[in-house]
């Protein structure tokens, strides 16, 4: 599993990666009450706003962590946004994407580097 400075995790799985947000981010946001997902099939560039999430406190965006194609989104989160707080590393993944350049993953942080970042 790799991490971004934007508090996302990426888990390689066959020919694609699964993307979610870290427990640290989920806790900082507070209970999620709204999730808006992109459509599967769209191409995104690193840094694009792809998901909107709202907690009891505020709205935030999840950015595309790398270039690629969104191939699947987790519709269960639309029905039950609180899942993100309950299981951020597991059931509450946000989308799966096929990376344009799979080796881009190498530039992302390892878990210990991410832990250092969040102190």
């Amino acid at each position, binding site marked *: 599993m790799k991490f971004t400075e*934007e*508090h*996302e995790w990426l888990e390689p799985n066959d020919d694609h990666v699964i993307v979610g*947000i870290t427990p640290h*981010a989920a806790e*900082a*946001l*507070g*209970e999620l*009450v*709204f999730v*808006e997902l992109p459509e599967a099939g769209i191409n995104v560039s690193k840094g694009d706003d792809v*998901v*909107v*999430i*709202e*907690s*009891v*406190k*505020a*709205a*935030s*965006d*999840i*950015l595309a962590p790398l270039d690629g194609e969104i191939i699947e989104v987790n519709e269960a989160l*639309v029905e039950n946004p*609180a899942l993100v707080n309950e299981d951020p590393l597991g059931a509450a993944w946000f989308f799966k994407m096929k990376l344009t350049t799979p080796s881009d993953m190498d530039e992302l942080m390892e878990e210990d580097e991410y832990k250092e970042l969040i102190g």
Partner: protein
Amino acid sequence: MVLGTLSQTRGRTLAELKQTPLYNLHVELGAKMVPFAGYDMPVQYPMGVMKEHLATRTGAGLFDVSHMGQVVLWPRSKEYKDAALALEKLVPIDVLGLEPMRQRYAFFTNDQGGIQDDLMVTNLGDHIFLVVNAACKDADIMHMQDNLSADCMVEVITDRALLALQGPKAETALAKINPEVANMKFMDVIELELNGAKCVVSRSGYTGEDGYEISVHEDDADALARALLADADVEPIGLGARDSLRLEAGLCLYGNDIDTETTPIEAALNWAIQKVRRKGGEREGGFVGSEIILDQMENGTARKRVGLLPAGRAPMRDGTPLFASETDDEQIGAVTSGGFGPTIEGPMSMGYVPTGLAAIGTEIFAEIRGKRMAATVTKMPFTPANFKR
């Protein structure tokens, strides 16, 4: 992702923030502390905003609202009526007719008919007790000193905490400490001892639930709060849930829903202006901005504060622009408060719209992230009030 809430609290110096007498208790309870109106305040406890909100609606919640301003007006003549008549120059409220040991909602108005702050006014027999908003208290105190000093001594109380105990089990919990509080009705005020400390207790609050607000000396506040929290039905509640509770209850937040630019009539607070201060009343007008406000009361206003229920799940937060239709270019108003209501299990907002679109059931549109989303003008409160009348 963009973690606004994280970056906000980072790198800010907390050194100049004031602490309430319950600061140590908040930290001990594991509260997340944030700067609010110059104070370091608990925004939530480990339970989280959603569960804190629901715990208040079903049990009882204890809030630290010691950041709010407590002020006493002592009439120089020793007669309540003289302090009441003086204060009536600043508020469009019947202060004179307020019975002893009763409380009433009020607001300071300005020359344009706008609202300078909203407050609670209590007749404590030979003097008036006021509770004002934290962010406005310095300005309020100056305003009263400038305008009331001939008739009153304005005493700013800085050594008392303010606690709120709210929810359907508030009465049972507080009555365990002093059974007398069970006899009080909504907006009654009593001076009594709680946990060995002399307190001023009102049956009031900011959640739409039954409950009490307790003014207690700072040295006794921690022990009283702990005594209340010892009850299994009482949970500590932070500012996060305080905001969602008051919004579900349809109550205005000063600075968001009402401010110096909104009049009480635009804000649909006509109910708070008693007949005796209205046109044709015995003490008609005579308050700051009364010509504008009384004229609006007779002839209406161009815009009005309304409740809004979004059709979808997306919260419409403060600042969200409002439109008459899905395609109209002209913005007609804006959301002033909005969020998710844990009790109604959905989003809710309040905001200002043209009076022609303010009727219950009118469909309007809000623009969120470039998309127009429908919302329906809705009667407030969003959750039924649960007061002990």
